[in-house]
């Protein structure tokens, strides 16, 4: 039985034209393989195969102490590295009932939003590239550089910050942080309309994204598609709203929701989120409270016996951290509910009936980061 299923899936029906998109392919953004059955140019079936970059992070977590685990999470969704860090920190802090200084939550939220903008900028670059508009790549990276410079100035790291630690931050922000963030906001407010001019309002882009691969709200919930991809279908899944953490409770921001659920809607939600993130940053940048940048923590962290779950909104969706502790300094079991993991498999529902070029556009609009799927 099992063999037969595998055989059918690998060989497909006789008249199918099977191509492998990946694991080495310019548009899978990593080592992911889509097994695509074609009829002419039209896709009949897509089977995603993953595991090419499975590193066993969950197993490694059972071996490492809590501060060490944080640095493994960087390597999952490297574009929202800070949110991944924060999720583990929040979970550990909640378990140990540590009161985190207000300055820390404030700065963490700011870093969250900066990371979200940087991540969406890179997504925009790659989305344009997937569609064949090569110039977008340089426009997006040009602006992303400003955010990475802010990170570099404060923490010395650019892509993954690794600055979180249970109880706070490893180091305080640079004195020039506020000024740099303000400069960035005023700069990016001017530059973001360029994105619309270059890609959003382009006729060919519109033709290729409008009405392509619509995902209904019910399917989005069924498949657990979260983040901007889910919100494009009208699935209100923003954890910042539904289970606020940090200081999101006190902030005034909109959850960008659309109802069409097609490729263009997924695109527009992310563009809208960049504006919204800038709004959040503007609310925060002027009133960072003074105080310690970390709470007093014990040298060796031991969580009380029990199970702890923390949901965080990363730039791609909902990240869940599930820690089972038996009272030791290493966790008994750690599970990461990765947003990309659920977002990936919906592609086998979305793509059939569309062309190969659409498959690339759809996977671009889902904004997959492969290491997060495999972990």
């Amino acid at each position, binding site marked *: 039985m099992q063999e037969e299923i595998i055989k059918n899936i690998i060989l497909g029906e006789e008249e199918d034209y099977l191509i492998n998109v990946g694991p080495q392919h310019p548009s899978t953004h990593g080592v992911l393989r889509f097994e695509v059955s074609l009829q002419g140019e039209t896709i009949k079936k897509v089977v995603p195969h993953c595991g090419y970059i499975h590193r066993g992070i969950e197993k490694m977590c059972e071996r490492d102490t809590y501060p060490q685990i944080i640095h493994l999470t960087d390597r999952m969704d490297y574009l929202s590295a800070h949110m991944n860090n924060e999720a583990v920190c929040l979970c550990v802090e909640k378990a140990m009932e540590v009161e985190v200084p207000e300055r820390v939550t404030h700065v963490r939220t700011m870093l969250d939003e900066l990371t979200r903008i940087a991540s969406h900028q890179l997504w925009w670059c790659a989305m344009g590239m997937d569609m064949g508009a090569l110039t977008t790549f*340089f426009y997006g990276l040009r602006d992303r550089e400003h955010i990475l410079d802010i990170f570099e100035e404060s923490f010395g790291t650019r892509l993954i910050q690794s600055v979180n630690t249970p109880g706070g931050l490893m180091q305080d922000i640079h004195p020039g942080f506020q000024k740099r963030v303000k400069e960035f906001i005023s700069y990016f407010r001017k530059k973001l309309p360029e994105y619309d001019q270059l890609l959003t309002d382009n006729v060919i*882009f519109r033709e290729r994204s409008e009405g392509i691969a619509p995902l209904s709200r019910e399917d989005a919930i069924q498949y657990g598609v979260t983040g901007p991809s889910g919100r494009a279908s009208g699935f209100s899944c923003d954890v910042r709203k539904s289970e606020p953490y940090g200081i999101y409770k006190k902030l005034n921001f909109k959850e960008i929701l659309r109802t069409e659920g097609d490729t263009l809607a997924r695109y527009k939600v992310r563009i809208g989120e960049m504006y919204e993130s800038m709004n959040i940053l503007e609310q925060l940048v002027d009133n960072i409270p003074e105080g310690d940048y970390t709470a007093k923590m014990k040298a060796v962290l031991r969580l009380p016996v029990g199970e702890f779950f923390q949901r965080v909104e990363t730039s791609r969706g909902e990240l869940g951290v599930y820690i089972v502790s038996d009272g030791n300094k290493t966790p008994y079991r750690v599970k990461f509910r990765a947003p990309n993991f659920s977002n990936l498999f919906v592609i086998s529902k979305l793509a059939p009936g569309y062309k*190969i070029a659409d498959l690339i556009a759809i996977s671009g609009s889902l904004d997959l980061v492969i290491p997060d799927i495999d972990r």
Partner: protein
Amino acid sequence: MTFNIYDFTELTRSIDDGLKAVMSPGWALFTELVLIGLVFLILYALIGLFLVYAERKVCAFIQNRLGPNRVGPVGIFQTIADLIKLLMKELIPIKNADKLLFNIAPFIVIIASFMAIAAIPFAKGLHAIDFNIGIFYVIAVSSLGVVGILLAGWSSNSKYSLIGAMRSGAQVISYELSVGLSLLTIVVFAGTMQLSGIIESQANGWWIFKGHIPAMVAFVVFLIASTAETNRGPFDLAEAESELTAGFHTEYSGIKFAFFFLAEFMNMFIVASMAVTIFLGGWMPLHFGTGNLFNHIMDFIPPLVWFFGKTFVVIYIMMWFKWTFPRLRIDQLLTLEWKYLLPINLFNILFVAFLTLMGWHF
């Protein structure tokens, strides 16, 4: 032997006379053919190298970058360095590929573009052959290149290559119609298919100005269709690097890949020079009215400068397309041709025929 940069007729005739004086007419013809071949080979290589460099600089300019800037002053020798690299690269043999077709495909592509360049008039009296059906010849020869692309895709024994080749076949055959029809618009105006004749007919004004709206429409259609015919972005579906890795030339390496690469740039040059010859007056200078000072200054600029200047403007426009637009999808590509460009073209040509019949053009 007189040398006149405004008229090469005397120069070529004197070379012909000189050769015939020292050898029999048959040998003289043979020597001339060899000479022309050599000149075109050098020209081909030079234009190819320059266009690759120009594309990289234009693309860098559009993308907020500097482009090549290390090899030589402002990176001028970058393409030569790339050429040396490509020459020294291994030619990877493909297991289970059709060896013969796999090896001749790049040559077919490059020969097609080489043949087309023969009919292009660079200046007065400076062209290899002046056919009386020059336009037909160029249309016929330039579409031979797709045979090479199809063979390359088929013989590589790779699925990506085959999809790329299929796309390319559908695309080139479709857009061939629009290219031909838009050129015919001007043939109706000029009343000749000879390229030199068409240029002479533009002595008192380029067809794009003289030909009312239909000539403008035909020019725009020609630009779109010829960009599609040369497989350049936003119509680069045959390569489509984000979908098919590299399309029909996925399996090629080294100098064979360089042949495809060079042929693409030369095809761009050929269609641009055709656009210039047919619509923008070829090597004719820009004139307004008759006998004023502006016209005299324009006449002072040599025809070769005019020709290459206009050609590179058209090439710049085509590069601009590539670096700003996303790629079309195959069905949209065919829709654009069969539902929009072709009907527009057919009505346009009817309209032009009517205008010419009534004598309502300049």
